[in-house]
Structure formats: structure tokens, C-alpha cells
């Protein structure tokens, strides 16, 4: 039995929505286990979200409508992106032609932009600090992101993630070509930066060098839950792009049977296990960089993207 395309598309979105906290829980748990402590339970992020949704909502007096609308914009943006990328099925589904890779990147950035405005909106000092830091990081990270996307589209001669997936599945020589290896390295640097991981972001939540936590410091209750959920989903989506488009294009459902979808979810979780372990290793061996050295991992990513573009011209 092959499920209708619309159902498959809904499955993709639901997969991102429901499994995102699990990934966050796994990373937090694994980090603690590496340091030989017990760590929070795997489903702790779900419990946190449940708790926050049942809490009272307190709004700052200085907040305007932007403060209200930002969590919804961020959350909706993260629900739109999974429609555009191969999450479970490796072929385009309804509405997945709304945008190409740059379009998906733009929707992802729109969510961050909304939170940025909200951080500035309430007039809180920490919100301002967090927003300005996030903008600086954005200025450093965006060129790398765009170059990585351009690099992979030069390799596949198309701007659609599905085409890239099929290209990598089809030929091992492209998979092991220097251009593709450089793109993987470049995207990994971006992944660490964009998912609030260590070389730049701090590992504890609330401290003086916080970036993302500072922007949402004024939020409480259900709105905070939406923002946290949105950031977990952003992490999940970036992992999906890294796994299904760059690193491990195998093991996706082709026909769209219920069993295939289930297998696809299981392989997705296995792939994430690998990537998350790599991230945990980086988090364990690397200490946080000084503010004036933030550009170094991003410059390395930029370098890899440029090298990838140069060597993709050789193919």
C-alpha cells in the first residue's frame, strides 16, 4: 500500500515536530555521559515543554505586538522548512516546489530574524546584547552558508535538495570527490554554530556569554515553550539537511509505504546518532572561544566552501 503524497508530506512535518525534542535530549544526555555523570532523561525536553505550556504567561510592560508575534513566526517557519527538504521520502511531495535550497535557507533565517526583533523589542539589556551578538554571528555565518549551498548546487547542477540526494546516491565517485568532502566539512562547521554548540555558544544556559538564551530571556510560559520547540526543530532540520543532503543520503523511503516510512524514521534516528556523537566529541574536547576568535571556525568553513567550489570546477 502506497500512502498518498499529501499524507507523506504531513508525515515529514510531524516527524520534525515530534522528534526534535528527542534529538536535543539525546545530545544533552550523551554530553553528560561522556563526562561520567548520569545526565537528564532522554525525554526531559518533552517534559520541559509540557511544563512550560501549563505555566502562566507574563508579558513585559514595554513589549509590543512584535513580542507576541515572534514565537509564532519562528515556530511556523520551522514547520514550513520540512516541506521543502527530503526528510523521509526522497522525492518531491506536494508543495515542495515552493522553494529551492536558498528559499529554505531564507525561511530558516526568517525565524531567527523574528526572535532577533523580539529580543530588541522589550528594551531589556540582555535582549539587546543577545540580538547584537546573534547578528554578528549571522554576518559571519551567512556567507559560508550561501557558499556551501552554491557549492552543492554547482556539484548537482540544480538548486533542489532532492536532486543532490539522488546524485550522491547514484555515483560513489561524486560522493568521494574532493568537492563533496569539503562541503561536508564546511557544513559541519556551520552546523555547530547554528545549533548553538560549543566552539562559539556556551554549554550552560544562563550565563554572561549567552547568545540565544539572552534573546528569549523575557519570555515565559507557552510563548517560551514555542520558542524552545522552534529552536529544537531548527536543530533537527539542520541535522536532516546535513544527513540527507550532504553526509548520508542512504536509507530513505522511495515508494512511500507505511513500513518504508517507519524504516526511514529509524534510519534517520541512526544517522542522527552518528552526527550527534560527532557533535558531542567536539563539545567535549573544545572549549568556548573568546569573543574575538568567533570568526575562526567560520573562516575555516568559508575556506572549505571556497575550496569545494574550486574543486567542483575540476570535475
Amino acid at each position, binding site marked *: 500500500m502506497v500512502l498518498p503524497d499529501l499524507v507523506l508530506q504531513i508525515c515529514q512535518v510531524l516527524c520534525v515536530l515530534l522528534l526534535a525534542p528527542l534529538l536535543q535530549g539525546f545530545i544533552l544526555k550523551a554530553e553528560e555521559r561522556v563526562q561520567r555523570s548520569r545526565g537528564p532523561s532522554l525525554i526531559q525536553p518533552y517534559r520541559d515543554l509540557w511544563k512550560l505550556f501549563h505555566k502562566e504567561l507574563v508579558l513585559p510592560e514595554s513589549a509590543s505586538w512584535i513580542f507576541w508575534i515572534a514565537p509564532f513566526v519562528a515556530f511556523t517557519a520551522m514547520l514550513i522548512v520540512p516541506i521543502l527538504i527530503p526528510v523521509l521520502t526522497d522525492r518531491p511531495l506536494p508543495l515542495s516546489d515552493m522553494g529551492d535550497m536558498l528559499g529554505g535557507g531564507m525561511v530558516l533565517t526568517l525565524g531567527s530574524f523574528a526572535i532577533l526583533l523580539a529580543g530588541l523589542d522589550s528594551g531589556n539589556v540582555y535582549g539587546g546584547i543577545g540580538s547584537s551578538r546573534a547578528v554578528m554571528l549571522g554576518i559571519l555565518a551567512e556567507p559560508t552558508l550561501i557558499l556551501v549551498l552554491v557549492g552543492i548546487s554547482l556539484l548537482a547542477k540544480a538548486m533542489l535538495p532532492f536532486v543532490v540526494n539522488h546524485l550522491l546516491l547514484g555515483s560513489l*565517485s561524486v560522493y*568521494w570527490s*574532493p568537492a563533496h568532502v569539503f562541503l561536508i566539512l564546511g557544513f559541519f562547521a556551520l552546523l555547530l554554530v547554528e545549533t548553538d554548540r560549543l566552539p562559539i555558544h556556551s554549554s550552560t544556559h544562563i550565563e554572561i556569554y549567552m547568545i540565544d538564551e539572552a534573546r528569549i530571556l523575557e519570555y515565559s510560559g507557552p510563548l517560551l515553550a514555542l520558542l524552545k520547540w522552534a529552536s529544537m526543530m531548527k536543530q533537527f532540520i539542520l541535522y536532516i539537511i546535513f544527513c540527507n543532503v550532504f553526509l548520508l543520503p542512504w536509507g530513505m523511503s522511495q515508494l512511500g509505504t507505511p513500513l518504508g516510512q517507519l524504516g526511514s524514521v529509524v534510519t534517520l534516528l541512526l544517522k542522527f546518532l552518528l552526527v550527534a556523537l560527532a557533535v558531542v566529541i567536539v563539545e567535549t574536547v573544545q572549549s568556548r572561544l573568546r569573543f574575538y*576568535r568567533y*570568526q*575562526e571556525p*567560520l*573562516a*575555516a568553513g*568559508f*575556506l572549505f566552501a*571556497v*575550496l569545494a567550489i*574550486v*574543486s567542483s*570546477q*575540476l*570535475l
Partner: protein
Amino acid sequence: MFLAHVNSLEASIFSSLAILSLLLAFVMLGSHWLRNYVYAFAAESWLIAALSAAVGYFGGYRELYAIAILTALFRGLVLPWLLVRIISHLNVKREMHAVLQPSSSLVVGALLVMFAFVIANYMNHETATAGHVVVLALTIMISLKLLGFLMLSVRNEAISQILGLLVLENGIFLGSQILVPGMPMLIEIVILFDLLIIVACFGMLVRYLVVHAGTTSSRELQRLVG
């Protein structure tokens, strides 16, 4: 030219070895620590030795095996050992006042690689697989030279400058191994001994600098003494 008959397996082996040595040059550019420069240089030399051996194997040049062994021995072991010895005598562990920060030099290095690629592409007249290897080898040769120049010009410590010189030389050697294999053995040996003498002289120079000027950084050496 032996590259005209290269098949895709050989091409991929040559290109991955060459690209890895380019990456090691970037490790040197992106690091602050003098010891890392030396380790990256040693690894780069081993890769180039492997490349010589691979060219010798696939192209049927017997003397390249000897050159590979000499390269690994001299560039991969003796020169790094001498340099580490010099560093351990100094009380300088890292580059303190770089003209360009590591991240900016990485970006400048990336631009230099693009420039090298444009030149190499312009110079290439081969087609198909041979063309790819030729362009890649030329790109990496020219970009290693440019990166060596970059290290020479933006780093102040004497050790970083000698390593810039060695990277530059490694680039030429790498290019010659792929593009014109089978140079007379004598010339290769002369080059290796030249390098050894350069590093040995340099070690003496550094000691002289430490005793008489009190520093090995070229920032401090601004005054002419008659």
C-alpha cells in the same frame, strides 16, 4: 608526458594526496602555535613522499622510490626534528603579533587558491582526466607557493618564516613530481641537501639572534647596526 595515459583511479589517488597537502598548508595558516606548523609541515612532506612513490609506481619511474624515501627521511623527519629542537631552545611558543589574524589569513588563503585555480585553468591544454590532474596539480603548486609567500609576509617569528620558505619549496617539489616526473636524481638530492643546509644555517642564525638581539621576531629588528 605520463599524465596523458592516467586512468581515473590514479587520478583520484594523485588528486587526493595533493589536496591533503594543500589542507595541511592551511592548518599552518590557521594556527597560532609554532609546534603545529612543524607537525603540519612534517605531515605534508610524508604526503608528498607518498605522492612521489605513487607516481613512481604508476608511471614506472624506478628512481622516484629513492626520492620518496629521501623525501620522507629528510623533509619528514630530519628537518622537523631540527626545527623542533630550535623551538624547544627558544622561549617563544606561539606567534604573538600577527599582521593578519589566523581567520583573516585563512580567508586570504582561500582567495589565493581561487587565483591559482584561474591561472592553472588558463595554462592547461590537456583534456579529459589528464587535464583535471594537470589543473589540480598546477593549482596546488601555485597556491602552495602563494601560501608560502603569505606566511613569509604576515608572520614575524623567525621559525614561521623558515616554514613559509619550506612550504613554498614543498609546493614546487609537489608540482614537479606530478607534472614532470623523472628529473635527474642528482638535482633532487642537491635540493634536499640545500634545504638541510638552509635549516642548519638558520638554527645558527636563531641562536645568534637570541644572544645579540634578545628576540627572534622580525618586528623587533628595525635598527641597523654598523
